[in-house]
């Protein structure tokens, strides 16, 4: 019999070693849960006074911290003016629990250890007298020092002085030659602040074409000017500069960027319409075109649906009131919306999913993912089924998906699909390991049992018995398979030994 045992073991595949994964709910997490229980069980011993806990206000800032008191001033100063929103009320109740200590030192208590030192060691104590003046602030210098008492600084010295934060008049750099030397020195000095300062001066004292021309061969300085113009919002000059440099794509992008600042949707749509003609690459032009078309659609859908919703006639809007407007949402969000509220509409209407799919050439994969998510959210399992069912010419139906079925399962599961629905798709997952994982995770017992049966993994199958309900059909199924398997194993063994006998 001992030999039979050995053979049997050979027949049974061994359970695979399992490494740590972030999917492992069972092993690692249970360890964590155990620790948590242990720690929590101590809570009542510990929680009698909370003196170690930091006092934290409703917004999470430690009371007495600067960020906290700023919120205090801002909320108290407005609370009388207007009924502050609910956050204040919520806040005031929980923060009343703390004794109000304006001068609380809770912040300093955070620096335990460090603070044991006499807290106000002076500057001179702290430093062994050397180099103090290096970082003592240069403040309140005598007025005279601000004055440009020497107008003979060389370009290099001028740049150096400016790097050290000293004010220097640049007015004496009047010839183009001098200006350019100054600029080159600034660039060579690596301090962007000074480079920009010199550029501001050049911008003021040179005709723009000349400035542009000189910057074309001074890339570092050019970057600084472009950044400066972006920050100060001198859009017109920026565009002139980019055009001068023949950077047409940047001209287009820079103009397109302005739409971000337009709040009004009608104005935004008009603006986007104007962007279509800008010198984008062919590829980007079509993106801009799509952007415009999308917003145009959204405006129509929004107007329609707002009307529908307020009229209260449409069941779907009554049952699931809209949480936000669809304006300015991405295409996929719009598609989701339309799969949610307008799934059955004919292709002719702007709000129908098929129309969106066609207009924007949405790939199958993306369409199916989005439609699935929307229909699953509504728990419209028949729609889900229809999404994946294909008929061949003989009339046989088959489940097909442009995405992996594990994805389908995941989306369904997230929408709390019942096990019967889930099971059907778990079964279709091709990779055995993934299928097993998913089936175990979502308690699709049938699928687990069948898979282990196909894998001939008796150990796992036996182990799985404790996961199913006692006396349930599932348990029975496992038992019958196990019995069957033993019979099979015996048969296998018999055949093996007879073959050996022949040898």
């Amino acid at each position: 019999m001992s030999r039979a045992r050995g053979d049997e073991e050979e027949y049974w595949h061994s359970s695979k070693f399992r490494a740590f994964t972030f999917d492992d709910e069972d092993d690692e997490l249970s360890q964590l849960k155990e620790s948590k229980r242990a720690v929590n069980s101590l809570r009542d011993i510990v929680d009698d006074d909370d003196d170690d806990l930091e006092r934290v206000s409703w917004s999470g800032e430690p009371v007495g911290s600067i960020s906290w008191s700023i919120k205090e001033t801002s909320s108290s100063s407005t609370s009388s003016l207007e009924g502050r929103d609910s956050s204040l009320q919520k806040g005031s109740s929980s923060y009343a629990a703390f004794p109000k200590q304006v001068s609380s030192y809770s912040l300093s208590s955070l620096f335990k250890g460090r603070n044991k030192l006499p807290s106000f060691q002076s500057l001179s104590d702290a430093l062994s007298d050397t180099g103090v003046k290096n970082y003592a602030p240069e403040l309140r210098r005598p007025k005279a020092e601000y004055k440009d008492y020497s107008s003979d600084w060389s370009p290099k010295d001028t740049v150096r002085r400016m790097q050290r934060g000293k004010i220097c008049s640049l007015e004496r750099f009047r010839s183009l030659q001098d200006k350019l030397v100054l600029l080159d020195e600034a660039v060579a000095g690596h301090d962007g602040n000074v480079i920009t300062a010199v550029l501001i001066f050049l911008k003021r004292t040179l005709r723009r074409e000349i400035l542009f021309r000189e910057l074309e061969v001074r890339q570092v300085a050019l970057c600084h000017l472009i950044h400066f113009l972006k920050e100060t919002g001198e859009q017109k000059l920026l565009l002139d500069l980019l055009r001068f440099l023949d950077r047409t794509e940047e001209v287009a992008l820079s103009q397109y960027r302005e739409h971000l600042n337009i709040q009004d949707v009608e104005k935004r749509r008009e603006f986007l319409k104007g962007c279509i003609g800008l010198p984008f690459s062919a590829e980007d032009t079509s993106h801009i075109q799509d952007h415009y078309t999308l917003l145009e659609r959204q405006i129509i859908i929004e107007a329609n649906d707002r009307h529908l919703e307020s009229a209260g006639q449409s069941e779907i809007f009554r049952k699931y009131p809209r949480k936000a407007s669809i304006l300015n949402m991405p295409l996929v969000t719009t598609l989701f919306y339309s799969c949610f509220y307008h799934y059955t509409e004919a292709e002719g209407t702007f709000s129908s999913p098929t129309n969106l799919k066609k207009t924007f050439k949405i790939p199958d994969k993306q369409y199916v993912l989005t439609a699935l998510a929307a229909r699953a959210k509504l728990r419209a399992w028949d729609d889900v089924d229809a999404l994946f069912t294909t008929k061949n010419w003989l009339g046989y139906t088959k489940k097909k998906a442009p995405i992996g079925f594990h994805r389908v399962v995941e989306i369904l599961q997230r929408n709390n699909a019942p096990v019967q629905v889930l099971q059907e798709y778990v079964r279709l997952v091709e990779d055995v390991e993934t299928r097993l994982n998913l089936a175990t995770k979502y308690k699709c017992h049938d699928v687990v049992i069948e898979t282990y049966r196909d894998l001939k993994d008796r150990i796992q199958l036996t182990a799985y018995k404790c996961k199913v309900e006692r006396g349930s059909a599932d348990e029975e199924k496992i038992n019958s398979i196990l019995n069957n398997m033993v019979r099979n194993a015996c048969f296998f063994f018999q055949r093996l030994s007879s073959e050996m006998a022949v040898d």
Partner: protein
Amino acid sequence: MAFAGRRDAPEAPDFGILKRLARDQLIYLLEQLPGKKDLFIEADLMSPLDRIANVSILKQHEVDKLYKVESRPAPSSSDQFCFLVRPRIRTMRYIADIVNADKMSGRSRKYKIIFSPQKFYACEMVLEEEGVFGDVTCDEWSFYLLPLDEDIISMELPEFFRDYFLEGDHRWINSIARALQLLNSLYGPFGKVYGIGRCAKMSYELWRDLEEESEGDSQGRKPEIGNIFLMDRDTDYVTALCSQVVYEGLVDDTFRIKCGSVDFGPDVTSSDKSIKVLLNAQDKVFSQIRNEHFSSVFGFLSQKSRNLQAQYDRRRGMDIKQMKNFVSQELKGLKQEHRLLSLHIGACESIMKKKTKQDFQEMIKAEHSLLEGFDIRESTSFIEEHIDRQVSPTESLRLMCLLSLTENGLVPKDYRSLKTQYLQSYGPEHLLTFHNLKRMGLLTEQSAGETLTAVESKVSKLVTDRAAGKITDAFNSLARKSNFRAISKKLGLIPRVDGEYDLKMPRDMAYVFSGAYVPLSCKIIEQVLERRGWLGLEEVVRLLNGNEFSVSDSAVEDNPAWESQRVVLAVFLGGCTFSEMAALRFLGRERGCKFIFLTTAITNSARMMEATIEAKA
């Protein structure tokens, strides 16, 4: 090998002095405006300020009310306004509006602007243009360096990344040079300086320049930090874009650590309130798990909670006296530990829950394939599906950038199709984002390199020889090839797998990415320190587009017995991730040296991607 064998790493110098300096200077500046005043603080200065001062310190110096700088004008009756701000055009206009509104209504007040860390000429120009130049006084608060932890100093300048790498603006280089000068004068002189990257080089040069003027007092001093390594973020974008799996990195990716502290929401605290927690070496639980791979964290926490349980249980057999002792001596510590344990367990649970939902496992698998360079098709379709499902705009971008960086650009067909689907999923305005990413070389089409060279040579013809070099440099910085695959091969960044990688007993820095990849940035630092220079790394340097340097200060005494020889200041220009810190801390333990991190800001993939997105003005 220059590294001494297993020696204990030296302690980090005490950086508390930096906080005191900043606080003292701020107090000095506030006193320059005697009398009661309202203080307006820029939003992103609030958390750094919180770390060095508190409300009562401000109150002691006659700050009456505190406001956040925002677009809403202030309804205040104070006679003096003080603005504590970053040097930004937008903020200048906000201040000018307040001043001008006061002028219109005949209200007279004193105004003072304190710029941190420095003033920009462009800001003064705006004040001048708005006609308020003489009405406000300006000062600088040289708050360059905020120590976030024993070994982390941050400049808290996240905008450096976009300003330098996208816009090509050198405005922060002066601040960096000054920060180096300050550190050098307090903890140096640094005997050895290494670096790679254009910004690193420029910062170094400007710093040297500043030092020349204040020369004299550093000689003969015994340094606390002996080596410094400067690195531009664009030397290694790949590492910064990977999903983090060491605990601190995961906490940052999941909850966003802000200025050294994190807000744990109700899902972590299992109560109805949020708790703000400082995460640093003083947290006895956190300090032991921060550098660990996430999979080792559970075991540690459960061990820890068992110990805690046991310690509480001891109390049962105690008599009154023992009990008294227990309560007075141990209970407080135990309670503290209990609180920390339950927070970190809660955080782990929440991370697990979130990551399981996002099929993190599959994403990590795709990332590893990209790093190793196989199954590119499969990874591409994973990314495609990620986009189609609208999982997360920044995550999708991140994966596309990883694909582009590791493959030296996307095949044009893939580029077009991914871009189109991205715009459909997350909004057409991201057209601007794609343009930005292309400029930075983060997401490119495979032919881009050639067209660029054409422009480059065309422009070069127009200029004199002297300027030509600069132009080439400028082009290089705008969009360079990443050459990741070749560099990875040269430096052996993908460890050869023989059997399971034991994440609990890491054998190299690859453990911070589950044993799949040694972070490039850290590998470069390791190699250069080991060789005490770039000798033998010529090919790697070429692939990294050059700009490497290595300087020994001959004036600085080179005493191998000094601990400072084994202290390295690693400077990340453009941000450093917690994974990189964990990797270098590991290296430090292995080699008996101590790394101190100086970064323009703590970064991660999401922050980097967000920095490339265009927002409305």
